[in-house]
């Protein structure tokens, strides 16, 4: 290690030697960095789970464009849209197809006595252009009345409860006082507004929710003709349909607007965002403390080097070397422990919590930056002082 570091730094690897010299001090410093990492990872994880659970239901249906009520901010809130809009949309140039999307929450009293709120998505199985590819095989089986696909990630449902469920060996449950058969599964998982999802045909949906009408779905999904830019069709639809009743956007834009609403306008989202900010600030403070303590611990030794004629550059080099080593070595246990916490939290809450490479890289780079900047600030004291005052 020392020889490798000598090659890398082109001098005695004093930063590394210093760190390796005092085990307890190194462990304390690494614990500090790791703790800062864990703090940020957990806060990012919670915010991320809100993001993931918000966008996941959008994978249950296709469509290039969505027509929603003007007062709709999410999939579920807002008024219903008149089916008339569907026919009006079909008349617009560039539109190839349109279908109705129904969404409603239902309470399920689970066999174990608990209750789960299930977000039920109803879609016409024959509207092939709107069924996502991974569901197209099972979709037609849903034409049988009161058959559904049940979310295998439903909060409160044992992980393996739905293993091996098919149309021949369905999982039977009761919803809204009716016997329903789950003949397959989807995987969405719990979020902040529901514990899981159900996927059903529009007919089954209307059976389960007798107060809902086929004349008033939640959203209209629109596909455009091959080679036509959806954004252009959105503009045409906006001209053709009354803007005071419906709003129109590409599916991606609607999902993004939903996410923005959840994270910036609803209390949970704002609190989680704030948690990330606090986590980052506390993390930076911890990392700065670790680096400045380390510089202070070695100030006498640095002052001796300064007295010998070493320039500020040299001390920056040592501290940067330490900063990078601490950031990387602290990140490893920090990320591992965070991964454990994610797994535990995910099991306990049923929320989607995954420590992906993007987030890991973000935290690692952020930690290195925080360490480096802290180190640079901490060495400024050395630059300003006369060596004689530091002995």
């Amino acid at each position: 290690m020392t020889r490798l570091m000598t090659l890398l730094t082109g001098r005695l690897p004093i930063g590394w030697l210093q760190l390796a010299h005092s085990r307890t001090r190194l462990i304390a410093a690494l614990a500090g960095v790791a703790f800062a990492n864990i703090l940020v990872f957990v806060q990012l994880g919670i915010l991320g789970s809100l993001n993931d659970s918000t966008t996941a239901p959008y994978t249950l249906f296709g469509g290039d464009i969505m027509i929603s009520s003007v007062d709709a901010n999410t999939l579920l809130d807002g008024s219903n849209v008149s089916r008339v809009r569907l026919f009006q949309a079909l008349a617009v140039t560039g539109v190839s197809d349109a279908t109705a999307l129904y969404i409603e929450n239902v309470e399920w009293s689970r066999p174990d006595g608990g209750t789960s709120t299930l977000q039920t998505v109803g879609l016409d199985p024959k509207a092939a252009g709107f069924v996502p590819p991974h569901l197209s095989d099972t979709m037609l089986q849903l034409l049988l009345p009161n058959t559904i696909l049940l979310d295998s990630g439903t909060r409160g449902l044992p992980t393996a409860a739905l293993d091996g469920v098919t149309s021949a060996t369905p999982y039977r449950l009761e919803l809204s006082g009716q016997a329903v058969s789950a003949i397959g599964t989807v995987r969405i998982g719990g979020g902040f507004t529901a514990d899981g999802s159900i996927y059903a045909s529009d007919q089954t949906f209307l059976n389960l929710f007798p107060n809902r009408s086929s004349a008033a779905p939640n959203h209209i999904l629109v596909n455009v003709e091959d080679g036509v830019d959806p954004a252009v069709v959105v503009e045409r639809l906006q001209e053709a349909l009354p803007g005071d009743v419906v709003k129109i956007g590409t599916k991606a834009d609607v999902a993004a607007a939903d996410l923005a609403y959840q994270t910036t306008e609803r209390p949970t989202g704002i609190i989680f965002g704030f948690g990330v900010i606090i986590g980052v600030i506390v993390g930076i403070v911890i990392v700065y403390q670790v680096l400045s303590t380390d510089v202070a611990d070695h100030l006498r030794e640095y002052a001796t080097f300064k007295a010998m004629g070493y320039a500020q550059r040299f001390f920056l080099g040592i501290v940067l070397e330490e900063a990078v080593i601490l950031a990387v070595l602290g990140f490893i246990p920090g990320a591992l422990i965070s991964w454990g916490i994610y797994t535990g939290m995910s099991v306990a809450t049923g929320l989607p919590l995954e420590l992906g490479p993007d987030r890991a890289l973000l935290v690692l780079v952020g930690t290195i930056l925080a360490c480096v900047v802290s180190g640079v600030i901490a060495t400024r004291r050395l630059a300003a002082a006369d060596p004689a005052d530091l002995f």
Partner: protein
Amino acid sequence: MARDMDNTMDVAIAVNGLDHYFGTGEARKQAIFDVNLRVERGKLTILMGPSGSGKTTVLTLMGCLREVQEGSVNLLGTELNGATEAQLIGLRRRLGFIFQAHNLHESLTATQNVLMGLQVHGRGDDRKQIAAAHHMLALLGLEDRLNYLPGSLSGGQKQRVAIARALVSNPDIVFADEPTAALDKDSGRTVVEMLKALGQERGTTTVMVTHDNRILELADRIVTLEEGRLVKDEFPRGQSLKLVRATET
């Protein structure tokens, strides 16, 4: 004054009208009062005086370790009052410092500590530098402690490593501030004798603060400070008359 300096080639350090203050505002207190001193090249000059008389302050002012506030310190031909950081760094590399506490780097071995004294001049051939460090440590009787960390060396051994580090790059001037204070009598004596011998051999100018009476006999010149003022300037061996004259001009 400066022209005079340039012509007097055997003067290593010229101090003129040096004042120094510590603290700011109300707490500002003068520690050094109008010190004038010329240190001759190649000689051992000893600074004496009671504790708190300003010996360390004068030494660190001459050694570029403290910013000169008032008066002039001309070190090896460069004025320190108002010197740039780059000038200071350049000068520091021509000095060797031995401190009261050894100030070795705790995580570096004896050899690595001495190497730090060489590498400040740039990294040359690794093997040559290591050989030079080993040679220096051997001269100080540490040939079997080359790869020891300071933590496993005795006080006298640590101070000898510090001397090796200060001398390894053949500095023009060596400053030593009570180098034996932390040592027992025998190892203190050994350390100073080694310092003196190596300095003489290389023609190094040495300025040392010490209380140790037995070391005084080794000195070419003894300067005494009291309460921040230079009160006595003795030449125990009667030489350096020229320097006295130079001071009088």
